[in-house]
């Protein structure tokens, strides 16, 4: 059994929270006392049934306003898989929350209201999915009960969406007609849409093979911590602790340590009481090297035969996440894996209108703005391009005045 992390994009009225509530409800993931709390709540659907959206609207302000402000994480499990859902708000003012929820997801569910079809926010949500490099997309055409479960409506929405998918170079797109409110095609195939021959949403999610981890073969391990017991019996012990981002490390592999460029060979791999021959992507291990090289937190151990890029000038996509606008005259901190260094945004190349996908020149960057920039770092970063290696191709910007995370960066090219 493995884990599927997915996120849901939809607007306030698309029934996103209801869809998640329905998945939880129909997979028996709501327990009796939670259900009791639900039933005693004052919020009900028009027909008097319980409002499933309450399950994900966690904060008091959200319940009062009936909207989702923040990312809520929900968990459920079937016999086939464990699921982690990031329920994110769909309104444009919460773009940063959606980017946050999407950053850890392997699959995106895009909700379309069958009555409205492909609208501005569908373009926006799909753009964010492509920006964040999510390869698998399920377009749920929701509220089919409101359009008499019409196959024609469903087909015409697919036709429109395919044009958008091409434009955004989305490859793996699947379509399912659903009614989250009534439960059609969520867990069980709906009898009210016998024209639909595909799988229900849950069956689809159980079966789809996604890359939970970067499938990039480039072996990378940022060093988080150096283990040095400094006891008598372990006097010379020096283990480099970190999580393998991508690729594999095997005993006797030739490695390079960046930024120093020093070379060595893997002598031993440790995982608590085990000594495996190979460390795979996703595993948190401790590596020992044959040579006594100077390594500390922030350095990266990489396969000597497949080096990452190294540069102080990087072209990147930036999503701005702070109420205080970007200031190109000040220094920020950039956190890339275990390394933090100073940086400046030296140039704004363009901004993207995420409702129309048009690019235009800009000299300011405000909350929820997305565009392409050039950043200049104090120390060179050892990175890969985001499309090749999601983990080693991403970073955050921190405003050292407030310590807030103000930007999400996806590396697109090293600047020569």
């Amino acid at each position: 059994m493995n884990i599927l992390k997915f996120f849901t994009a939809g607007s306030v009225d698309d029934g996103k929270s209801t869809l998640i509530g329905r998945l939880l409800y129909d997979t028996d993931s709501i327990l009796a006392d939670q259900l009791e709390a639900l039933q005693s709540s004052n919020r009900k659907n028009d027909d008097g049934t319980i409002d499933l959206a309450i399950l994900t609207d966690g904060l008091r302000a959200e319940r009062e306003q009936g909207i989702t402000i923040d990312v809520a994480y929900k968990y459920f499990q079937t016999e086939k898989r464990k699921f982690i859902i990031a329920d994110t708000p769909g309104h444009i003012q919460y773009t940063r929350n959606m980017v946050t929820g999407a950053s850890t997801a392997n699959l995106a569910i895009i909700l379309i209201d069958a009555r409205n079809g492909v609208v501005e926010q569908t373009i926006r949500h799909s753009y964010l999915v492509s920006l964040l490099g999510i390869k698998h997309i399920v377009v749920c055409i929701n509220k089919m009960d409101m359009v008499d479960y019409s196959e024609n409506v469903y087909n015409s929405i697919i036709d429109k969406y395919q044009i958008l998918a091409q434009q955004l170079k989305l490859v793996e797109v699947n379509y399912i007609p659903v009614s989250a409110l009534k439960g059609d095609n969520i867990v069980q195939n709906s009898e009210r849409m016998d024209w639909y021959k595909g799988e229900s949403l849950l069956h689809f999610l159980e079966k789809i093979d996604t890359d939970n981890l970067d499938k990039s073969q480039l072996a990378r391990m940022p060093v988080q911590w150096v283990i040095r017991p400094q006891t008598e019996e372990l006097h010379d012990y020096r283990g480099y602790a970190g999580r393998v981002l991508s690729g594999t490390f095997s005993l006797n592999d030739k490695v390079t340590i960046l930024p120093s460029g020093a070379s060595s060979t893997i002598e031993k791999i440790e995982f608590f009481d085990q000594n495996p021959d190979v460390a795979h992507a996703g595993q948190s291990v401790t590596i020992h090297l044959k040579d006594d090289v100077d390594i500390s937190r922030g350095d990266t151990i990489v396969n000597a035969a497949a080096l990452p890029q190294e540069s102080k000038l990087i072209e990147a996509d930036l999503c701005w996440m702070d109420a205080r606008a970007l200031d190109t005259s000040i220094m920020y901190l950039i956190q890339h894996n275990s390394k933090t260094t100073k940086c400046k945004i030296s140039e704004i190349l363009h901004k993207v209108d995420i409702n129309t996908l048009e690019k235009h020149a800009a000299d300011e960057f405000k909350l929820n703005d997305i565009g392409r920039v050039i950043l200049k770092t104090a120390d060179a970063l050892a990175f890969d391009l985001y499309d090749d290696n999601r983990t080693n191709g991403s970073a955050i910007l921190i405003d050292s005045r407030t310590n807030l995370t103000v930007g999400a960066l996806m590396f697109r090219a090293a600047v020569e």
Partner: protein
Amino acid sequence: MSTYNFDYLDELEAEAIHILREVAGQFEKPALLFSGGKDSITLVRLAEKAFRPGKFPFPLVHIDTGHNFEETISYRDKMIERIGERLIIGSVQESIDQGKVIEQTGKNASRNALQTVTLLDTIAKHQFDACIGGARRDEEKARAKERIFSVRDEFGQWDPKRQRPELWNIYNGKIHKGENVRVFPISNWTELDVWNYIRREKIELPSIYFSHEREVITRNGQLMAASPFLNMDDEDVVFKKQVRFRTVGDMSCTAAVESEATLIDDIISEISESKISERGARLDDKVSEAAMEDRKKGGYF
């Protein structure tokens, strides 16, 4: 080539170890909040996997309400001896004696709320800049929205509207003096995941997690262990029941569930079929729909 089978528990484990090592790398004076419950016991195992054969780069901190199950304290002391790490105890009784908090009265009196003050005092006294806790997002809907690195102001308050975006697996631990970060390495685990992990790792637990006969009373429709810490009166009828506890909290607010489960396997099948969630056995959440959100804003774990 070794066979490579990286299942969901391996993935959760690797993520938690990564988070613990980020705490070690990013903070000057971290601490691990240890309650004696299964979640913090799991954290100790994860810390062993993250840092052995080295020492933990943080002490364990126990906020002692003075209303503990005796089994929890003896478990704690044995465990500390086994792992050879430092334990710091913050005492709610001391906070009461110093007049910083006032003991609640009445039938539903509990020290659960008081421990927030003791926790904040302990953090201030030792100048901890990060406190690792065993909270999980599946426990409660306010927790479902909390970050893995959750920044608290100098009053220990969580502001749900001002949470930092948390992207990919990059954790921003930068804080101003006086602030601290609560870190939740097992945020993405469910109750069942924790139990499956405990079974797989053969981790020993305090005996109160398993079925035993105990003197109980009924309070607000739930079974409470009869103890001097509960304000009992003539209306309370003490009787014996075969029970176990699903969480380990203050004796005055942790309800027992009827159970015959004596082995971990029994517990796992019981939870899989159970229709009462884990926090459902905590009276402290029942006050209002926003009970947990309010406590967290005030500095609770």
